[in-house]
């Protein structure tokens, strides 16, 4: 078995391959921004239609869970960053450790969000539909708020789940990475950070703005 090629055959060098992979992930993230963009726009549009009713929905979210989750994701990106720094210096063990911590924190987020917070939201009757628990003049605005809340957190959670799968894959391939060759770690890192950034935009929209007014 000959040694693994330094780069794939359509590239002229390992450097070329690395640059191309990074360009690719940035472009992909741009499309993801355009995917989440309309949700943020819909949020603005819906709030403008009836700000007080919309915000009344916003006040019913679980602030403590939201804050904890935000901390978890920020810590997770930080851990990933440390893992990436480790492999850039050649330490595979450091990388695996950092990525495992990032994975665990991401999984904790999912558990907290869907296992705990969503369950509480359902129990409080906040899922839009015939059984929506808010009545009176604020009902349609609050319902729209929660429609967007469930929709965007489900979408974000799905992306996070994919991120967890990618992280697990990277960890399983740890043996192949060296200080010179670890493109996949960089690429997945960019994706992971992006998911984090999406959350950082969602967090104030969901938990803070309704409470500020």
């Amino acid at each position: 078995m000959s040694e693994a090629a330094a780069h794939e055959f359509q590239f002229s060098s390992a450097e070329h391959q690395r640059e191309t992979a990074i360009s690719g992930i940035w472009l992909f993230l741009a499309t993801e921004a355009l995917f989440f963009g309309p949700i943020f726009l819909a949020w603005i549009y819906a709030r403008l239609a009836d700000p007080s009713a919309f915000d009344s929905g916003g006040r019913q979210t679980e602030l403590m869970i939201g804050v904890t989750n935000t901390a978890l994701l920020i810590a997770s990106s930080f851990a990933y960053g440390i893992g990436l720094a480790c492999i850039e210096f050649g330490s595979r063990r450091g990388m695996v450790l950092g990525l495992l911590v990032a994975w665990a924190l991401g999984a904790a987020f999912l558990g907290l969000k869907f296992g705990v917070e969503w369950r509480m939201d359902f129990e409080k009757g906040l899922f839009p539909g015939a059984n929506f628990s808010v009545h009176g003049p604020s009902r349609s605005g609050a319902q729209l708020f929660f429609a967007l809340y469930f929709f965007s957190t489900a979408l974000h959670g799905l992306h996070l789940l994919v991120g967890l799968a990618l992280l697990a894959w990277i960890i399983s391939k740890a043996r192949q990475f060296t200080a010179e060759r670890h493109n996949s770690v960089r690429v997945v890192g960019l994706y992971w950070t992006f998911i984090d950034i999406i959350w950082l935009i969602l967090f104030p929209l969901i938990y803070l703005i309704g409470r500020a007014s």
Partner: protein
Amino acid sequence: MTHSAAQISYLEDGHTLRSWLLTTDHKRIAILYLVAITFFFFAGGFAAFLMRYNLISSHGLLGSAETYNRLFSMHGILMVWFFLVPAVPVTLGNFLTPLMLGARDLAFPRLNLLSWYLFMVAGFVALYAVLAGGVDTGWTFYTPLTSLYSKGHVVAAIIAIFIAGFSSIATGLNFIVTIHKLRAPGMGWYRMPVFLWSLYATSVILVLATPVLAMTLLLVAFERIFGIGVFDPAIGGDPLLFQHLFWFYSHPAVYVMILPGFGVISEIVPAFSRKELFGYKFIVWASIAIAVIGFLVWGHHMFVAGTSLFSAIVFSLLSYMVAVPSAIKVFNWVGTMHKGYIHFDSPMLYAIGFIGLFTTGGLTGLFVAALAADVHLTQTYFVVAHFHYVMVGGMVSAYFAGLHFWWPKITGRLYPEMWGRAAAITIFVGFNLTFFPQFVLGYLGMPRRYFAYPQQFEALNLLSSAGAVVLAMGYLLPLGYFTWSLLYGERASANPWGATGLEWTTPSPPPTENFAVTPIVTQAPYQYEQPEAVIHE
């Protein structure tokens, strides 16, 4: 991967099913797509055939309005998302992009294979939707009809389109990165063939607009499943919001459909006029202009929808602006033919047909861009004829032109030229017979999407349906002789047309790695200096 000295053609490089279904070779993936695209073209075409059959009589020969509504909806969905949007990019684009760039493959070959699998999954879901009974909402899915009233398989159709959208985004992403990063040494941006510029512009639109469609369709499904008021006013939503979101994607989508066709024509006209493309830079920047301005005109689908007078005026002005770059291209192609040495092989016949039909379709776009005229013409057969002239008369002709031009390169075989010319002419005649009467029908007031219609429109409908028979024959001919050529066609040389472009420097069909040695580019494209000589060796 080892590079063998004796270059095996990509078709011979592995004969197992596995070697095809797990290939990462862009050329094999192009073939995989070609089979799927051809299937959807004929599936959507069959629906159209049944529609024209129905319209022979003013009472509706199929007997059921529900069936008819589902037929035109599936015709639209299949043709738009499973044929027109992918066609040139995934077949010719996949095959030729690395070859034209002097590269060995696309930037992300495995992503390319994933694109194909996503497309196939989407296709199966779409087929399921069709076989389970289809949808009756039109391909435009207007709410609240779609979200609350339709009894068809809306969610299945939405899922199919959603997945197909991801396939498009992946393909577009792959092309953009490839064109930026994998150009051969010496190939600056202005040395790229126009076909690649067109694919680039197309890919930019794909990656920017498709996510918006995905989101919009998800919201419709959400409303339909959970009863949340996003678009239905009865539960607090806004039906116009849907139209804005939908057309924000779907208008750029039509430029996704036509830009690759422009690229194909820009390769063929110089080759068969043996002359440099007239105004290369203008054509290139016209493509970019179309991509950019194309994002700003979506409101022209809503001139009678209930938007403000002011927005209607702005969109009308922008719609006239977007027509200018297309006009420039037409003039430039004609300018290329001026003082050239014109050959009338099939690709050129299709290309000339394209210029005629696309120009006609484009001019009728001026009619519907004029606000007051659009009020009368919108939602009638006039608009149906307009978009079929540009999409079918234009885009499908360009697709066929490209297939004929690059067939020898892709398959290593020559198709029988006489049959090729016969098909081109049959298609041109059949197309005009089918769709020209529809301009008149529209002016006279016949609405579109009507299962049965007033008696007075019957004669023109009969003429149109007769034309459809001719058109169908024209489309079936290539299916016949292309298949024949695979088994019995004469073997093709590397450059049977004497065209310029790096793809013609490789054998026909090319070896898996395309180029044994990375080529170095030293001149601009389309250097056809002498009447009969082959330029590149």
